[in-house]
């Protein structure tokens, strides 16, 4: 009798497998296409990362090429452009976070104070719009406005700046990149904060009012603490992609004249790998970029779980 109980509790692995396959046969069938996709388009390129440690020659294939250890990383770290790339990547990213991260929070807080629902919804619809415009179109508009006789330059001239093409001035690249990024994403990114705001218990506001809080104090002591967990989670996710500056946009906007401030790791990877065919070196650069991102993600997550007790994992 007791033997039976034991076998019932711990069925042999093979039997359990068979039972699982019988019970969930169709679920496994449904997931097969996804697994095939992951293997071919996600995990196979991950295997391809080994060429960062090899001297990859297309004729020899990934496996046949010679191992070279960390040579490519050393080459890259000694490259005179390394510090320029590091500096540019961090600068663009830091400014994007510094101005781009709070912007949708502020928009959500302002929208939350609007009492006319129709006006609120109209503003929302309009500010979502740039998110649906393609980068090519957005950058084209930027380019047209930044020409020597374009709108922005004319505004600049009104304030006494000389007529010039703003896109060939290295000092103007960061503001153009950051401001256009805010323009395109502020509305869309505010959605999540608005959703979090609507989840705040109205009784808390009532209580605050009874305690004599004015509107500003209500925002400070009720609204902001209410959306703080959402802010933290989004902040962690944003920090996890600190080195992922939008290379598609940079590729569309930069010129040889602005490499000084606009060239970042991913655009360097693009030029080295796809234009100069230095596959191994550019893979090493890309891998370095990914690893730094992961370190930042883990660090911010750790910091956030320590301080605010909300984290991704």
């Amino acid at each position, binding site marked *: 009798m007791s033997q039976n109980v034991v076998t019932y509790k711990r069925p042999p692995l093979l039997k359990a*497998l068979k039972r699982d396959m019988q019970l*969930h*046969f*169709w*679920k*496994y*069938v*449904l997931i097969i*296409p996804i697994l095939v*996709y*992951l293997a*071919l*388009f*996600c995990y196979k*390129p991950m295997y391809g*990362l080994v060429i960062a440690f090899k001297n990859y020659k297309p004729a020899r294939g990934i496996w046949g090429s010679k191992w070279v250890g960390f040579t490519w990383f050393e080459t890259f770290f000694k490259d005179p452009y390394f510090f320029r790339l590091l500096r540019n990547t961090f600068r663009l990213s830091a400014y994007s976070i510094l101005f781009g991260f709070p912007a949708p929070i502020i928009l959500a807080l302002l929208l939350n*104070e609007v*009492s006319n629902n129709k*006006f609120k919804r*109209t*503003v929302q*619809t*309009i*500010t*979502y*719009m740039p998110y649906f415009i*393609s980068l*090519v179109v957005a*950058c*084209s*508009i930027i380019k047209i406005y930044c*020409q020597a006789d*374009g*709108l922005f330059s*004319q505004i600049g001239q009104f304030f006494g700046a000389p007529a010039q093409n703003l896109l060939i001035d290295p000092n103007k690249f960061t503001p153009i990149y950051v401001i256009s990024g805010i323009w395109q994403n502020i*509305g869309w990114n505010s959605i*999540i904060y*608005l*959703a979090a705001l609507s989840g705040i218990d109205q009784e808390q506001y009532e209580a605050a009012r009874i305690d004599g809080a*004015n*509107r500003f104090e*209500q925002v400070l002591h009720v609204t902001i603490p209410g959306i703080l967990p*959402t802010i933290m*989670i*989004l902040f962690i*996710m944003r920090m*996890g992609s600190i080195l992922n500056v939008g290379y*598609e946009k940079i*590729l*569309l906007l930069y010129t040889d004249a602005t490499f000084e401030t606009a060239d970042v790791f991913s655009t360097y*990877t693009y030029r080295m*790998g*796809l234009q100069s065919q230095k596959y191994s070196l*550019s*893979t090493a650069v*890309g891998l370095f*970029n*990914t690893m730094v991102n*992961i370190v930042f*993600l883990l660090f911010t997550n750790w910091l956030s779980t320590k301080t605010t007790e909300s984290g991704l994992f």
Partner: protein
Amino acid sequence: MAKKVKDPVVMRGTKIKTSTGSKIFDVCNTLFLLALCFVTLYPMWYVLCASFTNNVYLVSHPGAVWWPVGFTTGSYSMAFEHPLILSGYKNILIILGVSLPINIIMTLFCGYFLASKGMMFKGVIQFLIMFTMFFGGGMIPTYLNIRSLGLFDSLWALILPGAISVYNCIICRTAIQAVPDSLTESAYLDGANDLIIVFRIILPLIMPTIAVLLLYYGVGHWNAWFNASIYLTDNYKLPIQNILRSILIANSNILNSAATDSDKVNEFAEAIKYAAIVLTTVPVLCIYPFLQKYFVKGVMVGAVKG
């Protein structure tokens, strides 16, 4: 006043608290939001006006345009006749037509699997799926992979790598989790298998989510240009965004070289750029407001459970 009290925001500020400061804030807030709307809308309005504006005026008067000057639709008829713009449209429609069914079916399957419980390998498979959100091969190994799969210079190189987005799968999973278990259980008892359950029970119940997913995937394909620029070499295989990029960003004379009547292209050289922008942007801008009320759900889910 009595009518307004229903609104919680107004209630917060009523009676003693409707101070002058509060009123000033409301006015400033409204003005600021109106300014934001203007800054958002003006570039669109500019492009729309410029596309109808006489080319001569456009060249001599860059900068602000408030109204179409010398109204003409020449740039549009020009654009519609151009072989490269037409093939760009055709290609993007092929990509959308093939991609979207693949996207939706794969996302539905993946979401259903992630939402079900009890499978022995669920943990492993879920990890394999989620891991790709944080780590990937990167640009060069991905590129070499596409080459080695023989997809180079084919539209499949734009369709297959984007067959599924894990982020969208999580949105789909959450929608499926909201379907009551008793529905699927009763279907099981009636002898339905998971395939039937997915298409006959789950799919009709999560239609709003499917609509949002269609929008996300569709806009993603419609606006993409990078992959096409590295995988395709034939100009006549390029989707519309890449044609736009050649005209607007690279300033190449791609249109002249392919046009039968290059004088006519030159005549509208400036205005045709704007017409092309309008033609590629309007379809997307016409769709999103209708799905707006569902955005909140999708975005919320993805970010919080990612």
